[in-house]
């Protein structure tokens, strides 16, 4: 008899406590967002160390040449081999003539950026990278340079 009463008491208590918790949450600010329909969601930018799309940076000097010397450090550091570079010229003249990064293969590990001795390659805060075909996901030299317009710093947590 005592056990029966206790069961009813505990069951009733569980229901009441559950409702109190739910009721309290009515008054808490919501943390979800209607991305991509809301403005806050569309304008959200990740922090400085975020690992998103790629960009090639230009040198700070007047001539505005690419910093990249096609030394292949990034391609060697890549665990999946998604970076393909062809360089031209000798010594100081050396520069890339083709630079492909396959975003479909990339694992976003950031090791290419860390391997670069010239701080020429960076990951950006671009996070809408999905495409409708595999060919769309391959970034070429022009796209990478365009993504680097206006940037001077490589991605780094500060």
């Amino acid at each position, binding site marked *: 008899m005592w056990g029966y009463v206790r*069961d009813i008491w505990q069951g009733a*208590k569980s229901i009441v*406590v559950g409702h109190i*918790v739910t009721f309290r949450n009515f008054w808490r600010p919501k*943390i979800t967002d209607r991305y991509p329909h809301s403005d806050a969601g569309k304008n959200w930018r990740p922090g400085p160390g975020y690992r998103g799309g790629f960009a090639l940076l230009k040198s700070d000097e007047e001539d505005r040449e690419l910093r990249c010397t096609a030394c292949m450090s990034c391609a060697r550091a890549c665990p999946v081999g998604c970076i393909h570079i062809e360089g031209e010229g000798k010594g100081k003249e050396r520069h890339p003539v083709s630079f492909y990064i396959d975003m479909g293969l990339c694992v*976003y590990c*950031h090791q290419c950026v860390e391997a670069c001795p010239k701080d020429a390659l960076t990951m950006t805060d671009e996070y809408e990278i999905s495409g409708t075909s595999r060919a769309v996901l391959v970034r070429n030299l022009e796209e990478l340079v365009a993504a680097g317009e206006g940037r001077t710093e490589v991605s*780094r947590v500060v």
Partner: protein
Amino acid sequence: MSETTVAGLTTEEMIVNVGPQHPSTHGVLRFVVTLDGERVNECVSHIGYLHSSLEKIAETLRYEQYITNTDRFDYLNGLGNELCYVQAVEKLLGIEPPLRTRFIRTVMAELKRISSHLVYLGCYGNDIGAVTIFLHAFRERELLMDIFEAVTGGRLLYNYLRIGGLRNDLPTGFGDQVHRFLDHFPRRLTEMTDLLTENRIFIGRTRGVGMLTAEQALSYGVTGPSLRGCGVPYDLRKLRPYAAYDQVEFDIPTFPEGDCLSRHLVRMEEMRQSLRIVRQLLDKMPDGEIQAEVPRRLRPEAGEVYERVESPRGELGCYLVSDGSDKPYRMHWRGPSFYNLQVLPEMVRGGLVADFIATLGSLDPVAPDIDR
């Protein structure tokens, strides 16, 4: 198939497929369950759907290139897996990481443990029909994800630890961000305890269900909260302190019953202990370098090493064989989910089919960690 006659009626066993795409199997897992009415007679697990060949891949990658792959098998404990791998390579090379690095690694591993247990809490509630707790647990996990994103630049796949160091130092404002979480989280944990752990229906579904004795657990190699839920205080953080665990005070929660409820209570208590560890480490956080002197090309001498850490699911081990080149000759992972799953047929035999899901969920398996 056996046919028996009970009071003039014939009955036969029924074979039911649970999975591979069942909402309660935590990934792609398949069980063939033989039922006698509502009772489970036999349960055979079929694994391998998520095999990703991560051990073989290690033989084709240099030591420093493999770190990013360790995030990917037990994806709920990315930083803990990195810690295990990085410590194994450091042991092979004879490198001692700086004290600050060891502190930061421990803080991140403990925060990741809380995050992993929150996923367990949400999914376990979902498994046995308490759907609300899932949203509560994932809301709190979001705060941890923001911390990980600020520190490592990634939300799930971090690639943060380096051999002999870290990718970068802690960002400015890290201490405040974590302290805000530490102050806020215990209240929400109490709320989640009110909501789920003290719920009459939850207790009814878990008390006395999926019984596991300490002898069974030890003979099957079960570790982690599942073993501590049988009353065995086995925790590598205490028994063999690695990283900065020798610098902090904490308790190992154990519950002797060995049922689903005691495994659940162990995890709830572990979250509180992890908060305690993080708080102590933040107070004692030393200044200094984060990267030890490491040769540019890592070529460990020929030899082998086994390193183990306490992951949220149990003992995670990494076995590495080096032949003197810059790539491992052989690598093997001891994934806790794989070993914990082996005891499942013993636990569910003779129980109700509804309790099968409750028992499976209480082991907290992660499917890629079973297959690797």
